[in-house]
């Protein structure tokens, strides 16, 4: 074990719920290994946020979330050997490092016919099939399994195309979403057929309806739970949300996920009643405004906390939106519902964005949450290997500064009199990667955080009452 790994300390969590996630993830991985050994359930490699969990669950397929496994390798600082193996195959280190880690691991396992030595948390088993979907988000999700298939040529792939209309300030997305819906429904029906063929199981549509209902209830519950975080002091930060994303993204369509958020909501309500904040002396309320975290450096959230900074909200992994605030057409067909929910989620901010000149959905969401969560500054992370979530962040901050200046500050006018001017929120973009630790410097990162905190403090002191 390297010195780096030995020294690495676990992040402190604010909630008990977040602290319970580690064992849950370990159990996912252990569950896939057991299922493989016992050959009792088909295992599918797949990705989060595809609105297909209900279908997989209804057809009794065990999903193996390959981004999650790569994230674990990153979090325990054991991704490098798999990244290097992928590089040796001809894959550039500039590509998605989740994918590189996964391909490197799979190729190694297939080459030696068993798990690579000391596999993280038992390792990633060979799947029975793989479910890709690039959507209009992520090229690696479309290419990863195709690349892996070179080393597992007997494992079939189903690639679900799930587009959504991009924002157009001049056009109502509802003008076109009918044909998007029709296409996604066909894609999902094709997926059902594929999984039926792979598993030999027949879809029980009543069961699927129950699971879609359960997911809908869980979505609304998560939304209610996360809205509690607007309270002052902050009761749960982004560091914890990087744990609670696990049941949201990996266990949707399960009672376990619903119960998890039920308990988290209860825990947050109790904390609010007791005014028990994430930190003792809350000074700055920050939004994690974009970018996946460095899984190997979640301790940086504790560092922010040590400076009195809290993160009551984040755009990352907030992969649900309140269904009761979406104007979706009614249907009883569970597949059609999944497709509408997909479109409703991605277009959730479109109407609001169209109403504010110069706004755009991602910018609009920032503005809304700055107000709802009483935010003093924005932190983003640019992970060099991921274009999906990390392109457009600089522009979003520029556009936000252009159209939204929420901080009244006292300035000296020409004649020496004090005047109030409005200025934009301070922001910080950290630079590193999701799992490639070679790009990270703790000293540099913390120096940048210190400088940012100084800016926040100066704004705090000059804020007009």
């Amino acid at each position, binding site marked *: 074990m390297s010195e780096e790994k030995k020294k690495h300390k676990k992040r402190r969590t604010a909630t008990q719920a977040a602290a319970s996630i580690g064992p849950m993830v370990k159990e996912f991985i252990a569950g896939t290994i057991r299922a493989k050994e016992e050959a009792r359930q088909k295992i599918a490699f797949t990705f989060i946020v595809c609105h297909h969990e209900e279908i997989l669950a209804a057809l009794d397929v065990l999903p193996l979330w390959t981004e999650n496994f790569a994230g674990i390798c990153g979090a325990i600082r054991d991704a490098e050997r798999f990244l290097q193996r992928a590089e040796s195959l001809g894959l550039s280190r500039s590509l998605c490092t989740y994918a590189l880690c996964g391909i490197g691991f799979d190729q190694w396992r297939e080459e030696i016919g068993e798990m690579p030595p000391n596999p993280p948390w038992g390792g990633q088993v060979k799947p029975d099939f793989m479910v890709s979907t690039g959507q209009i988000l992520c090229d690696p999700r479309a290419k990863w399994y*195709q690349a892996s298939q070179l080393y597992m040529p007997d494992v079939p792939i189903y*690639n679900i195309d799930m587009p959504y209309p*991009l924002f157009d300030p001049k056009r109502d997305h509802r003008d*076109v979403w009918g044909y998007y819906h029709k*296409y996604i429904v*066909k894609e999902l029906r094709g997926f059902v057929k594929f999984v039926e063929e792979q598993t030999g199981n027949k879809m029980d549509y009543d069961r699927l309806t129950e699971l879609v209902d359960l997911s809908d209830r869980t979505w609304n519950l998560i939304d209610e739970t996360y809205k509690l975080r607007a309270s002052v002091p902050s009761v749960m930060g982004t560091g914890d949300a990087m744990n609670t994303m696990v049941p949201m993204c990996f266990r949707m369509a399960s009672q376990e996920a619903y119960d998890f958020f039920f308990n988290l909501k209860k825990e947050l309500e109790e904390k609010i009643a007791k005014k028990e904040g994430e930190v003792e002396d809350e000074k700055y309320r920050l939004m994690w405004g974009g970018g996946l975290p460095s899984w190997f450096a979640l301790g940086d959230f504790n560092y922010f906390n040590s400076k009195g900074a809290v993160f009551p909200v984040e755009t990352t992994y907030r992969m649900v939106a309140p269904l009761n605030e979406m104007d979706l057409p009614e249907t009883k067909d569970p597949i059609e519902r999944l497709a509408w929910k997909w479109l409703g989620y991605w277009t959730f901010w479109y109407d609001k964005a169209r109403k504010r000149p*110069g706004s755009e959905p991602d910018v609009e969401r920032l503005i809304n949450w700055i107000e709802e969560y009483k935010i003093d500054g924005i932190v983003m992370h640019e992970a060099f290997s991921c*274009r999906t979530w990390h*392109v457009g962040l600089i522009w979003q901050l520029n556009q936000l500064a252009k159209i939204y200046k929420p901080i009244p500050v006292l300035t000296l006018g020409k004649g020496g009199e004090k005047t109030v001017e409005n200025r934009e929120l301070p922001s910080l973009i950290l630079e590193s990667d999701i799992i490639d630790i070679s790009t990270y410097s703790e000293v540099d990162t913390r120096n940048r955080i210190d400088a940012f905190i100084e800016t926040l403090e100066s704004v705090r002191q000059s804020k007009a009452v």
Partner: protein
Amino acid sequence: MNDKNSIISSKVEKYYQDYGARAKELKAQGKTIIGWVCSFVPLEIITAAGCVPFRIRGDIREPITKGDNLLETIVCPFVRSCFDLSVKGRYDFLDGIVIPHACDSMTRSYSTWMYSLELPFSQFVNIPSVVKESSFEFFNEVLNTFRQTLGEFVGKAISDNDIAEAIKLHNENRDKAKALYEFKKSDPPVISGVELAKVLTVGSSLPITESNSLFDEVIEELKNRKESPRKKGPRIMIDGACLDNIELIKLIEDTGANVVADTLCNGTRDSLPHADVDRDPIDALAHRYLDKVNCPKTYIDNKELNLQKDLENRFGDIGYFAKEFKVDGSILYVYKYCDPFGFEVPARKAYYNSINIPHLYLEDEYTTGTIGQLKTRIQAFLEMIA
């Protein structure tokens, strides 16, 4: 070859060096110019609207400056260069821009393009990622939306007939491009790689009728060319995405090899596939752009789970061109941060091995700063295959 009567060394050279000069003139005459950045943009609809489709190029000699303030360094360096030039006003004659659902670097930066350039017309065309019957139905709808939106912008209903006529003109252009490629089959080739790259690049900056006339003039010149500008040498293919500058080709040809084939966006990927003329014109476009433009972004199903067949389905054009143009070796040239091509490198290498074509994989940035390193590696490769 600096004959002043030569179309290649006069007209082509002029428009290559002063890229966009003709579009500027047309703009001054009242024409509507629509910029595009990728082979997936359905140019026929732009032509059918009476607009001039203009391919936005990058410039490897121009450092990224203004673009750095708006677009992350992790974006494909080619896209960043195109964006940087656009925000700096190099293409200030554009009335609009069309960005397709191609790679993440384009798709995820669409808002940045739209809001930063503030052009009167901006459109994202949502190309499907998979090839199925339902994808074509969806794509037809997307194309009809594009037709309607562009028609509203120019104040003209774009009819099926308009599109059918535009398809004919663009297909003519593809026939002429194919005729240009034919001049590369001889040994030494009648046209150099550098020359052809310039001709095709300039062609993509002109209205289609002018592009057709230019290609005709070049073809006529090549028919009468008495002596090849090249000597016999290793016959090289370049395999990759968008190569809109001559630097790499020049580098290869300066070492004595001849670039005789390619799979590039600014080459065969874009220039050769036809749209069918015997079907509904929108459907014909859907099939051309989804089924015939062979880009790694489009997922090709491997239903039979047959590895060699899968490689053949995905990369068969490489084998075809290698045979047609008697290629001795190929350079797989991929930009840093290019996910669609980057993830295919091991599979492309496997395909090259299966057809016994020596190959060199180069990952590069869009800059002249890497030319020295590239030269060393290319020289070593050419020595190896000699």
